[in-house]
């Protein structure tokens, strides 16, 4: 229990937000049956869009590479079921609205591609070979931003610390928590592989205090396996899962504005990504499925599901037996940084950490009123900006003036808008400023 009750580490600012995690925190991860059709968007990551490698009518198997990106910052996409390519056309996309996608009709056999097989001699693989495997397996950051992992693990300057992000500060989501509990061994092996790639001595695993079971289990397992990873229990506060805030909380280093974590010698990797790295390297399995939390007060059977990428939201909702009350909103991700969807006919992509369904009465009315300069947004802002000042600049259309408040530092976590008693659209205002003064 050492450490759990001691003064808890955290970052300045932020806000404790009601988690609603009890809905799914005790639901074991269960695999969802194969959908009849999957839609694999060719852009599921930060960076250039993939070129399709298959054409209409081609036979594919689970794990067959179907899209390859060009350029350094890019990734690959794989078929998630075995079957036939139905079409390659624009389809709804949960982030971009619409994006070219490969639509695959499943044949129900769920055969794996020949490349998907256990790899031997992992200990002899060099850093470059490991990075090539990661790129070829289409692994991207599974925390939500979907930044290609092979780029992140190959920083332009050496780093000394690796932080594994098991914070999951978004309310409602529990997929990372379940993953840490149920797949602890895979997680530890994945961390070891990443540690080898980035060549660091210090490894921390950051977990919020409300996930005590995960903290204890990881600590026990690390002791059993005699690894030198340190599990850090953090005070539960939003947005602790943001890279820069996590670095500040765990090792006390502050990433300067406009810089990246490797500038202070740190790399942050999500727990889901670490497990994906393990699966890609040891099992030869590309990233074609992920764990998705399906949750909400009105959902009949909230669950943590292992879902094939490209499965429609509507299929998943049907598997969870729909909702008890009329649906008000579907959100991909958590309620803070998630994106409200206009239809349930969108596919799960690599960045889909959850599907949150809200009833009509859970959606707050948004009548904007004048700023009363209470300063609550300033107190919670994790990057210590002046959110109210930026929203006032938008109101008076003085975009030049807004530049002095460094709008680019904002990561759009939404803590300011959450605490604003005047219900001001602060995040949207800052997005507007960023779009205007780019």
């Amino acid at each position, binding site marked *: 229990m050492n450490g759990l009750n001691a003064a808890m580490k955290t970052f300045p600012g932020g806000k404790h937000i009601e988690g609603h995690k009890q809905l799914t925190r005790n639901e074991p991860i269960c695999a969802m049956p194969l959908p009849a059709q999957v839609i694999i968007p060719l852009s599921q990551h930060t960076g250039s869009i993939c070129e399709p490698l298959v054409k209409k009518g081609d036979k594919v198997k689970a794990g067959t590479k179907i899209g390859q990106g060009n350029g350094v910052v890019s990734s690959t996409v794989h078929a998630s079921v075995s079957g036939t390519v139905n079409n390659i056309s624009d389809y709804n996309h949960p982030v971009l*609205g619409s994006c070219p996608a490969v639509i695959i009709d499943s044949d129900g056999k769920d055969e794996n591609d020949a490349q998907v097989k256990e790899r031997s001699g992992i200990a002899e693989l060099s850093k470059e070979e490991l990075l090539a495997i990661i790129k070829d397996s289409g692994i991207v950051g599974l925390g939500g931003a979907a930044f290609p992992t092979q780029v992140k693990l190959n920083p332009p300057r050496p780093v000394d610390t690796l932080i594994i992000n098991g914070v999951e500060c978004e309310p409602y989501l529990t997929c990372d928590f379940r993953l840490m509990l149920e797949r602890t061994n895979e997680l530890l092996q994945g961390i070891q592989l990443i540690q080898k790639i980035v060549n660091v001595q210090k490894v921390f695993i950051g977990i919020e205090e409300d996930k005590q079971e995960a903290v204890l289990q990881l600590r026990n397992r690390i002791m059993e396996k005699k690894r030198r990873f340190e599990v850090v229990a953090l005070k539960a506060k939003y947005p602790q899962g943001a890279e820069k805030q996590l670095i500040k909380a765990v090792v006390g280093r502050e990433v300067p504005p406009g810089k990246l974590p490797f500038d202070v010698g740190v790399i942050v990797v999500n727990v889901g990504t670490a497990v994906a790295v393990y699966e890609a390297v040891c099992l030869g399995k590309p990233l074609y499925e992920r764990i998705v939390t399906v949750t909400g007060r009105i959902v009949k059977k909230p669950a943590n599901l292992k879902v094939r990428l490209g499965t429609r939201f509507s299929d998943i909702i049907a598997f969870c037996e729909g909702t008890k009350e009329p649906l008000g909103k579907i959100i991909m991700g958590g309620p803070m940084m998630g994106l409200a969807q206009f239809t349930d006919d969108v596919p799960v992509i690599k960045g889909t950490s959850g599907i949150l369904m809200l009833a009509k009465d859970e959606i707050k009315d948004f009548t904007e009123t004048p700023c009363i300069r209470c300063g609550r947004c300033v107190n919670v802002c994790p990057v210590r900006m002046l959110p109210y000042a930026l929203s006032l600049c*938008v109101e008076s259309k003085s975009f030049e003036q807004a530049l002095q408040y460094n709008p680019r530092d904002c990561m759009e976590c939404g803590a300011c808008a959450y605490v604003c008693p005047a219900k001001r659209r602060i995040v*949207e205002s800052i*997005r507007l400023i960023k*779009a205007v003064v780019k």
Partner: protein
Amino acid sequence: MNSIASAVIALSGLGLIFGAVLAWVSKKFHVFVDPRITKVTELLPGINCGACGLAGCAGLAEAVVNKETELAVCVACSPENKKEIAAVLGVSAGDMARSNTLAAIIGCGGGTRCKNKFEYQGLKDCRVAALTIGAHKECRYSCLEQGTCIEACPFGAITMQPEGVPKVILERCVGCKKCVSVCPRRIIYMVERKKKDVYINCQSRDKGAQVMKKCKVGCIACGKCVKACPVNAIAIENNLAQIDYKKCINCKKCVAVCPTKAIALR
């Protein structure tokens, strides 16, 4: 009585001294301002649109009088006023009076006739709407209807039509291109203002069948206008009709044949 007299004398004495000092200071530290600058400032439109790139109309007046820039950079000033300014400066009207010949056109007739994916409830600004899951319109080339161009126009030359898309009032538009720079969909373009009334009221590069599903007034690239044009001024490029205004004779035959009314009159 005595006290009143002394107060009056003291105050008038002070007044005289201060007056003399002020008179001397104003002579000694006089800054010469070219009277022409004031006159030119008065003749300029005075709406400080900033299209010339200088600090408002006063800034332009100073620059013009000091011969740092040409008056032609002002797109808002009427030709008559430009002539008067030329007279003030004692130069020939010629180049100075040349006014901007372009006017803006909003190339989308969508609005309520173009399908919505979802209802947009965010900040009333097209630039934010464009960032919201690829915007709320089915058509990815369409106007986003939040009226950012209307707000940006310093001349009140853009109004919202009942169909939900803004339109440029030709008489008021001076061609400052402010609206062009704020539109996130890049659907506003500049066209010669004189005589040419026809324009393509659509920017969709989608194929005809897709356009028909999304919008009632989109260009479906049927090519009827190309055939109807007597001077071959219209061509279809990337599934969208384009008018070559150098050839256009303003016969308006294309407007009559267009099945979706994607060619409009301004």
